[in-house]
């Protein structure tokens, strides 16, 4: 199930992605050397706490960057095209919405309150997809049906819809031009657990029926397991562990992943909850060596000075950036 095990060109291949923001106290290294592959039709979840850089990673892939970017480097090759070297205009015309679309946490609020829902879905099709208005109307209605919204939604204004329904409209727009990849950044975080499950079911259906690949960004590793084939755990701007969902959940290798899993209150188990002492580091001045070392229970001398490379875990498919996996360590 892991991307590495599948043969053939990946749909998306990210190499050495770095993104820094200029700030008074020095550049904030939000994404600091991230690499991964994603196969067509698969879902990669990026999980991490607030400030781990997961949203910056998404913004870099979508080229939706704020003005204070100090550094953007690396490659993000989608279907053979490096998205990071295209001009803004080329990216907008060729990639965004057509090749890679997105659903954000606040997508419900991104709907324009003065236009009817149908108009807004149609706009993606006419402005980006070159559809005629009549064709776009037909397709917009089809899309609303696909996300299980009643036909009359087409003529409703956003304020007449619930949060869950607005999120469905955002999903319909994201699917409008049949992109092979959708970026989902905390797409259900503002929703109640029941509606969240409905939207997750919707994503599962599109993955199975339309073969849409996705990058699912979340702070919630349990929710990520609802969709992800592969899980990447981010900490302080880096992916510290990545592997198949089975391996990462059943046999996590990185102490951070282990702690993150032990911190989740389980519905059907009374295992005592653990927490990670301290706070995530300031990314304008990250710790030397392994960035997790000040909070790690297994810290060794080497961890303080040398940054660990990606090392294969015991379980096979996963790799983790942790010196504990180095054979010489124990």
């Amino acid at each position, binding site marked *: 199930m892991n991307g590495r095990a599948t043969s053939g060109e990946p749909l998306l291949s990210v190499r050495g992605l770095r993104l820094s923001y200029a700030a008074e106290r020095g550049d904030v290294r939000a994404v600091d050397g991230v690499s991964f592959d994603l196969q067509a039709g698969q*879902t990669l979840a990026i999980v991490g*706490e*607030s400030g781990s850089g997961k949203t910056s990673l998404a913004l870099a892939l979508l080229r939706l960057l704020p003005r204070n970017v100090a550094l953007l480097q690396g490659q993000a090759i989608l279907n053979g095209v490096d998205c990071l070297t295209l001009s803004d205009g080329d990216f907008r015309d060729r990639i965004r919405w057509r090749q890679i679309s997105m659903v954000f946490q606040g997508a419900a609020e991104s709907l324009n309150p003065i236009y009817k829902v149908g108009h807004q879905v149609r706009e993606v099709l006419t402005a980006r997809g070159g559809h005629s208005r009549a064709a776009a109307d037909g397709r917009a209605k089809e899309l609303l049906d696909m996300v299980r919204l009643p036909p009359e939604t087409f003529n409703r204004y956003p304020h007449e819809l*619930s949060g*869950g329904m607005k999120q469905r409209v955002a999903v319909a727009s994201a699917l409008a031009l049949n992109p092979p990849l959708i970026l989902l950044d905390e797409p259900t975080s503002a929703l*109640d*657990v*029941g*509606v*969240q*499950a*409905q939207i*997750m*079911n919707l994503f*599962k*259906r599109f993955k199975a029926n339309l073969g849409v690949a996705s990058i699912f960004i979340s*702070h*919630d*590793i*349990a*929710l990520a*397991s*609802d*969709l*992800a*084939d592969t899980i990447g755990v981010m900490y302080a701007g880096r992916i510290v562990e990545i592997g*198949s*969902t*089975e391996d990462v*959940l*059943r046999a996590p290798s990185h102490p951070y992943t282990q*702690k*993150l*899993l032990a*911190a*989740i*209150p*389980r*519905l*059907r188990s*009374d295992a005592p*909850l*653990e*927490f*990670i*002492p301290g*706070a995530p580091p300031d990314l304008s001045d990250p710790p030397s060596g392994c960035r997790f070392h000040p909070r790690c229970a297994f810290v060794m001398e080497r961890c303080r000075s040398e940054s660990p490379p990606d090392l294969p875990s015991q379980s096979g498919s996963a790799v983790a950036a942790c010196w504990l996996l180095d054979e010489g360590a124990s």
Partner: protein
Amino acid sequence: MTELQAARAATAQERGVPMLELRDVAMHFRARGRGFRSTTVRALDGVTLTLDRGETVAIVGESGCGKTTLGRVSLRLLRPTAGQVVFDGEDVTRTPERRLKPFRRRAQGIFQDPFTSLDPYMTIGQIVEEPLVIHGAGAAAARRERVRWALDEVRLRPAEDFVDRFPHLLSGGQRQRVGIARALTLTPDYMLADEPVSMIDASSRAEILALLGELQERHRIGYLYITHDIATARHFAPTAAVMYLGRIVEQGPTRQLISDPLHPYTKGLLNAVPEPDPANRLAERIVLPGEAPSPANVPGGCRFHPRCPAFMAGLCDVVPPPIVRIDPLRSVECHLYGDDDHQRVREAEPPPDDTENTAQDGETV
């Protein structure tokens, strides 16, 4: 606590009176409807609940179920439109604000958002000291000592390092601890904890919950833990009540609610909760259809009937379900359990009380 209060608390306990009692509480707001008409928002519609010292009861429900209103009524931040709020046997439902101070000293709250609930222009020391100033508790030196004590209790140590700092310099978990210290300075008996960890990173949630548990042991605080997350309720609250559209639909020991849910809504809610499991992605979840309607538009009969997989036409849409006591600790409000094997506590909910709340500004939905 003054000696008088202590004495009163002691006698109340001897009499076997619960610390906090909500009796058939309703909270109806008048809101603007279509055009010039007004509608009634029934945020709470007959809720009965008790909480003792040293006890934790979770109120679990989705947004709009009335759980936050319930919390605000329990602190008498809202005056309910019907029913009673009784604290140590004393009815405080209609007590005017100027006479509520003794109650306020003993009933404090911590809230969801540690980013907006702390005044950014006040230092941590000032924030934690404020309740002491309001209640005229001690001279300046004694108050400062008390602030240091409270910061130490919530493990913001050493306290001296925190008193002069401003909230924006703290992490989410640290800010929430400031909120707890502030609520703790007056050593309350009752603490409302309204979603205290839902905006905190997963890695720190357990730390805050463990801290609340320790404080409870040391100070015998009773918590009403309001949450949308039934999994944290299992780990923090031995007893839980599930709310839907202004009513408690099921209550009992939290573990039993989870292992053997009775109400179809509780079952649906549990099905929707993700656990970290690689098998999750292989099948769709069984979910309840639709979303809860607005409390301005409560369905007749059983309010859950339009979404209920066990809906019985002619009964559920017409007759409000009775509260059925399953055993001494568990009850459920559902027609499925209306057999005569179970003792009916009450035939049905009372007719809706249309008294409008005039003391508060109506909230627009």
